[in-house]
């Protein structure tokens, strides 16, 4: 009986092995270009593990779904590239200008653009989109109506009036707000919960088929840019696990990756000379002190912590070298290197200096206790708990390195690895001592992140929800600087303010940046050309960045 089983297994294995070979080798062969406006060749497959199956909703205002529709089917007024210091590319607006005192913004809307159902797009649709967000505040994902007072369309222009000058909001208004068709959305009863299963937009692609496992987009034959897009079809599978998504990149099933891949050189890059990756840094991941904590409110303690952390080691061990070390000025390099206040950096010295850290602690009245923890005359020990997100294994690993670094200078930290919910509950409400975290919004200059962290309008007392200033930092002079930044469009003034903000980061140490978060991006040059690279960063390169993904799609061409 056992022999039979053994033979049976071998036979079955053989049969299935043959089946495996034949099933796995199917690929799409490019068809010949036919006449007509839409391209007929090239299928691009995206590998971006979302963790869940698709719901086939494409509402551009739903934070779960907008990555699937904005950039593919919906477009913004102006594309702003955060990787090239905010370089603008006109999209639905052919031009724009600021009014006197930067209190108004006027867009000229491009003629000749049509919605995918054939209706012409006009300035009225733009005004409608903004007023829709005004009426339904749940759609206002970026809070644009906290600064706008009115949006009106006249002829082919749209004028936006500001109740307070807020130049940086240009990014959220022009780049981050999708424009939707009035003739369809005015019939929708509840724009916030309507799934929008069949999106109608002006974008280069149409959503042609959606199953929970895969979305297929086809090129829009009536797209307003002639000759674009060049790729006929896009597949966007719903990967529920990173492993499957990573494997599909490694074996060439998908060509555009937005994945965290462990040991990426062994796993992915070595599999083909056409495989490449690039991780542009975006925002800081920081050790965030609760400034209301009596021991942490001492700036020398915070400075000591900053000097004690070996950021190179955190980057290479905790993040496998994918996320570069950050610096105490809070300027993310090389993305915003041009904004770096070099003299301030020189004054701060080497970012990793345990001797300096120890000296600072001693000058603050601490001495090394017998248990290896620094203690002051009043008997208070430098031991804290650090909030961390247990699910982010790279953050957990990074915190292990930070923990070891701090231990070496006598500061004991114990990680408290929480679920996302628990973390938000404690971090946002200020119920913590130390935390490891980052900002979610990345904008075209260092101002966006720093304003989120430092502006007191974003904070709240302990026990109440703070929007983004979770460390509870408040300084009237810093607020003045940040508010001044938001009133000007002059690059020289902006840089001077940023220089001063960096000085604040060094003097006040409100947060301690450790490493820089990156966009995950892998690309296969064998099947397509036109990819964004570190030498040509024409857009944020991940498939989940929108509307940057549209720029990528418009540059790509099949080989």
């Amino acid at each position, binding site marked *: 009986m056992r022999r039979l089983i053994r033979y049976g297994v071998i036979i079955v294995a053989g049969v299935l092995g043959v089946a495996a070979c034949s099933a796995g080798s199917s690929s799409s062969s490019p068809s010949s270009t036919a006449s007509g406006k839409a391209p007929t060749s090239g299928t691009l497959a995206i590998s971006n593990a979302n963790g869940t199956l698709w719901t086939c909703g494409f509402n551009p205002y739903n934070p779960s779904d907008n990555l699937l529709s904005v950039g593919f089917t919906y477009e913004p007024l102006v594309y702003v590239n955060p990787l090239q210091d905010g370089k603008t590319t006109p999209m639905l607006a052919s031009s724009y200008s600021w009014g006197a005192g930067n209190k108004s913004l006027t867009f000229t809307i491009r003629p000749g653009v049509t919605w995918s159902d054939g209706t012409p797009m006009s300035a009225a649709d733009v005004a409608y989109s903004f007023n829709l967000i005004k009426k339904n505040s749940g759609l206002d994902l970026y809070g644009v109506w906290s600064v706008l007072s009115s949006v009106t369309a006249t002829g082919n222009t749209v004028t936006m009036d500001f109740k307070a000058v807020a130049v940086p909001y240009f990014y959220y208004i022009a780049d981050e707000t999708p424009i939707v068709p009035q003739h369809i959305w005015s019939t929708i009863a509840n724009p916030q919960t309507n799934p929008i299963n069949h999106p109608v937009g002006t974008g280069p692609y149409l959503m042609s088929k959606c199953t929970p496992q895969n979305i297929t987009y086809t090129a829009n034959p009536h797209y307003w840019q002639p000759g674009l897009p060049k790729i006929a079809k896009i597949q966007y599978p719903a990967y529920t696990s990173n*492993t499957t998504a*990573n*494997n599909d990149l490694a074996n060439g099933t998908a060509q555009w990756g937005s994945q965290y*891949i*462990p*040991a990426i050189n*062994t*796993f992915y890059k070595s599999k083909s000379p056409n495989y490449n990756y690039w991780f542009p840094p975006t925002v800081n991941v920081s050790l965030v002190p609760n400034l209301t904590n009596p021991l942490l409110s001492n700036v020398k303690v915070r400075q000591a912590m900053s000097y004690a952390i070996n950021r190179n*080691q955190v980057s290479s*061990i*905790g993040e*496998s070298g994918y996320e570069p070390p950050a610096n105490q000025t809070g300027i993310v390099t090389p993305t915003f290197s041009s904004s770096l206040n070099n003299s301030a950096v020189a004054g701060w010295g080497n970012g990793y200096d345990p001797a300096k850290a120890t000296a600072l602690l001693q000058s603050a009245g601490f001495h090394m206790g017998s248990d290896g923890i620094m203690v002051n005359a009043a008997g208070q020990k430098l031991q804290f708990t650090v909030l961390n997100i*247990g*699910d982010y*294994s790279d953050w*957990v*690993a990074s915190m*292990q*390195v930070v923990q*070891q670094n701090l231990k070496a200078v006598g500061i004991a930290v114990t*990680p408290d*690895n*929480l*679920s996302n919910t*628990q973390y938000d509950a404690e971090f946002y409400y200020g119920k913590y001592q130390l935390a490891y975290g980052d900002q979610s919004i990345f904008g075209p200059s260092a101002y966006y992140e720093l304003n989120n962290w430092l502006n007191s309008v974003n904070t709240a007392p302990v026990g109440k929800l703070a929007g983004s200033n979770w460390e509870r930092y408040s300084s009237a002079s810093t607020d003045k600087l940040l508010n001044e930044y938001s009133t000007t469009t002059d690059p020289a003034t902006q840089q001077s303010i940023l220089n001063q903000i960096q000085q604040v980061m060094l003097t006040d140490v409100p947060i301690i940046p450790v490493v820089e978060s990156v966009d995950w991006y892998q690309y296969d040059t064998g099947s397509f050309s036109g990819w964004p690279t570190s030498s040509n960063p024409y857009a944020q390169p991940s498939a989940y960045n929108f509307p940057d993904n549209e720029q990528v799609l418009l540059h790509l061409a099949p080989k």
Partner: protein
Amino acid sequence: MAMPVSGVPTDTPTQVPAGHALARVGRAVRSNRKAATGTILLVIFLLVALFPGVIAHDSPTQDAYPPRLNPSSAHLFGTNAYGQDLFAQVIWGTRNVLIIAFAVGLFTTGIAVLIGVAAAYLGGGWDGTLSVLTDVLLVIPLFPLLIIIAAYAHGEGTIVLIFAITLTSWSYTARQLRSQALTLRNRDFLVAARVRGERRLYVIVMEVIPTMTSLIVASFLTNALYAVLLASSLQFIGLGDPNTVSWGTTLYWAENNAALQTGEPLWAIAPGACIALLGAAFALLNYAFDEIGNPALRPVRRSKRVRSA
């Protein structure tokens, strides 16, 4: 975790005073090959757990070495992606695993003895209620329930694991003990004790439980085995505390770093093999106890005598 080997109900053992029972067990272990192997394995693991520093000289948590080194004389299992010595991790992890195994084994068996024997002796309404409680918990799928509990508890670490596993695992043993206690209820020596006027509690603790020693020991081993498997499974899927040093958490990190696909198979294979070995040790001992308890199951040793024609 393996399914319980539901054997034939063991024959009701003869009454034996407590001390002699243990001695009998000890003799049986030595003579049975499976028991001997299991014991040796268990003793090895115990020694490793008690004296990890002697065997592994590196710290299991310091990211002290170059990452992804192959096995060598300096690093017997190589290093992982974080530069930690894998051999040290596996050795130091033994302690956490054995603590969980013995703690859960003890508590679970303790609760099971309490409830199972009480149900058998109190009879009537008590028996009905306790039996229903036991059966209900027996039938609800264990692992999914554990996942839910651990998920809500947000993986707070070893103590939570021990409590959660104990709370969900005692029912099978309770049922077995109840069955055996029931069969003993009307045996002569117990009737004699009742006639003598002994109190019920005395009868239970001094007469009944010692007689059930082999079953209790076997249950302890089974529960320890399941505790190891359940705890490492929970840690593996990320519901334990990722900062503890344990076999399950090492596997969790290995899985998160795609160890198998990136040429570091030992990161995943080594702790898994240890779990398998420890599990095998418990299982072998358990199987041996089955045989000791039920002579019918003992291996038939063929005699070498030539049969007369």
